[in-house]
């Protein structure tokens, strides 16, 4: 419903033209829409109320800019506020001056602690550390077995030990033994996977506290499910009160949850979200980037990951050249067009790329269009361009009827397909020229893509 928050805000400000400043009155409708979007994204309603107050305070009195529409201007304020609230990028762990560093995993049942323990061990291993895993979940059936399978899969060390009775004494004994084992075997990080527990379970929360006392961990990570709703504040607050958390891992972010719980948890604990889990594989752990999740919470796409992905895969200089050519419209040859297709292919499927764009503004409708795009069509287009001579690629106007026939034959396509391609190419050139005009450029400048 808020895929088009951007649109809604545009609508909310329709009557604003000509007014010089944002006032409480003229942003009221926009604030209502933002509140709705945040609530639907599962941000806790108290947190929403507070955010809205602060956003409103910042917006009121601002002059209406000419470069951005009022809707975009408000979105920028919202974005900035949410990013500030979420804090900095923080995929860092604190290490002990005297190893082993102890990382204690904490959280509700089913939040993903065991899988995350494995991912973390894997991440540490890749960073040159020697982690040791231990599970002190003596309660859930086959929980310790699960961690063992995980450890084997990632070839990490694990301290197994033995369980007699399933109680806190056993939990403490296992923890102590594991720490000794870490020292003896020269492991520099001990990751302690614990049983899932409810924040209102006093006995098990006490157990958590005694584990903390015993191990004196450098990190106590709260593992939380990205799909969590309003209750996130209650569990996070209680865990933080009892344990003084040092960070948060938000799991199952590969789904389509908006992830508003991130804001809620960050607000009540004040602790940074250090990682996000994005899949069931053991390398599916990523640093947390506030700006990205803000886009997601607001339903505005993951622009930054698109850019990052593009940056890492595309030959930057080439991309720049292409962009310049494209924007001036002239000199964007079929040769360039083919290059661009190849770049796109390198980045992954068209759908996955377009899926990362926000479904608002200039990009609106692209996602739907992408679903209809047939990737094999791209292959055919490339085949057609491949069949052209170098001269033809740079002088599209030279491609007459007989050349078209030859190209069709050479590429195993039909003359009609060749005609289609040439027509589309001509349209594209025209569109690019259009985009190169100052008005469009100014609008795009409002959305600065870092590093591009």
């Amino acid at each position, binding site marked *: 419903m808020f895929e088009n928050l951007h649109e809604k805000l545009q609508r909310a400000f329709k009557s604003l033209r000509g007014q010089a400043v944002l006032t409480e009155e003229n942003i009221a409708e926009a604030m209502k829409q933002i509140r709705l979007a945040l609530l639907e994204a*599962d941000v806790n309603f108290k947190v929403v109320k507070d955010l809205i107050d602060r956003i409103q305070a910042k917006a009121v009195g601002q002059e209406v800019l000419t470069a951005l529409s009022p809707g975009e201007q408000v979105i920028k304020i919202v974005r900035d506020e949410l990013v500030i609230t979420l804090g900095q990028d923080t995929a860092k762990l604190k290490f002990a001056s005297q190893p082993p560093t102890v990382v204690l995993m904490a959280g509700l049942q089913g939040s993903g602690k065991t899988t995350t323990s494995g991912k973390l061990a894997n991440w540490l291993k890749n960073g040159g550390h020697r982690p040791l895993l231990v599970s002190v979940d003596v309660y859930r059936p086959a929980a310790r*077995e699960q961690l063992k399978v995980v450890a084997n899969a990632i070839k990490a060390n694990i301290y197994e030990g033995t369980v007699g009775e399933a109680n806190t004494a056993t939990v403490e004994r296992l923890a102590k033994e594991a720490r000794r084992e870490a020292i003896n075997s020269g492991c520099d990080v001990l990751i302690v996977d614990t049983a899932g527990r409810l924040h209102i379970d006093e006995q098990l929360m006490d157990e958590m506290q005694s584990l903390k006392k015993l191990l004196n961990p450098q990190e106590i990570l709260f593992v939380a499910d990205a799909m969590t709703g309003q209750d996130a504040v*209650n569990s996070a607050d209680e865990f933080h009160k009892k344990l003084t958390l040092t960070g948060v891992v938000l799991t199952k972010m590969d789904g*389509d949850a908006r992830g508003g719980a991130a804001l809620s948890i960050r607000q009540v604990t004040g602790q940074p979200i250090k990682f996000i889990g994005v899949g069931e594989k053991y390398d599916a752990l990523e640093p947390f980037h506030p700006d990205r999740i803000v*886009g997601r919470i607001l339903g505005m796409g993951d622009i930054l990951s698109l850019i990052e992905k593009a940056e890492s895969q595309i030959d930057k200089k080439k991309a720049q050249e292409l962009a310049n050519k494209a924007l001036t419209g002239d000199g964007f040859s079929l040769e360039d067009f083919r290059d661009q297709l190849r770049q796109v292919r390198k980045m992954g499927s068209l759908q996955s790329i377009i899926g990362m764009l926000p479904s608002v503004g200039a990009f609106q409708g692209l996602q739907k269009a992408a679903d209809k795009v047939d990737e094999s069509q791209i292959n055919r287009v490339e085949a057609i361009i491949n069949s052209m001579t170098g001269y033809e690629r740079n002088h599209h106007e030279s491609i007459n009827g007989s050349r078209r026939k030859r190209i069709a034959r050479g590429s195993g396509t039909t003359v009609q397909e060749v005609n289609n391609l040439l027509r589309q190419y001509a349209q594209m050139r025209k569109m690019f020229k259009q985009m190169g005009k100052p008005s469009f450029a100014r609008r795009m400048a409002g959305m600065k893509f870092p590093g591009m």
Partner: protein
Amino acid sequence: MIQTLFGSLDEEKKPSFVELMKEAVSRTRESLSERLEDVVSIGKEIDRSTLDDLEAILISADLGMATTEEVLQKLRHKADRKQIRDISELKKLIKAELFAILTTTGSRPITKVNGTPEVIMVVGVNGAGKTTSIGKLAQTFRSQGKTVLLCAADTFRAAAIEQLEIWGQRTGTEVIKTKPGGDPSAVLFDALQSATARGTDYVIVDTAGRLHTKQNLMLELEKMKRTAQRIVPGAPHETLLVMDATTGQNGLQQARQFTQSAGVTGIVLTKLDGTAKGGVVVAITRELGLPVRFVGVGEKVGDLLPFDAHDFVESLFN
């Protein structure tokens, strides 16, 4: 420095805000009914603003905006015309609305038709409580004197088979399994064949947790359904979607997708022993007409209760 879509900015430190939030949250923990009294006792007359405050209460139980609005819209109308006299009447009306939504379903109790085994497939996202609920469900049927076979079709998650086996031991139920990484449909095939041969009353099928957005995994469920159908006509007779009560609005999306792929017939709402209210099921029932069949209230074998709409609605308010 923080990189944003609009450039970079310096992080502002605002410790005072965190403090403020903490305060806000401790207020959240007061029970709903306390807050309801608060809200309504502000003025003698119940008016629009009172109902606006009620909105927050329903939202905090994860009912979502659309459902909350629908419930309140009717009351708002009455309040405008000063037709609601006091708190107890207001409460009664809200409860009646919620109750009506929750009971307008295609609900039918899980019953056994004679002859062929009744096949129950259990699906849901990772960590929702599927395996645990299956253990408890097995216990329920066993205590009714029925024979039960468990099918370990979660061949994906580490030690998932062992976990189900322990529940099998706890409840005296046999588990049909394959090796880790094996084909879920193949083990389902085996389980249904043995159940048919033995005349087992119930087969409960554990499946791997999956996010509803993973197309290939959702297709796997469709394939399993077809397999079941082939061996036992009409199977699966029940497909239960297990949902964690802490789930927010994404629960609706889960219910939609799993219903589409796996033909969900009912919901098991787990972890109601925590502080989460599980209100998203109201939204689900409202949209999809799916009945909640059972609720999970703990990790022990007996911690599964049949869903009672009346009790559930009451629990939203205390």
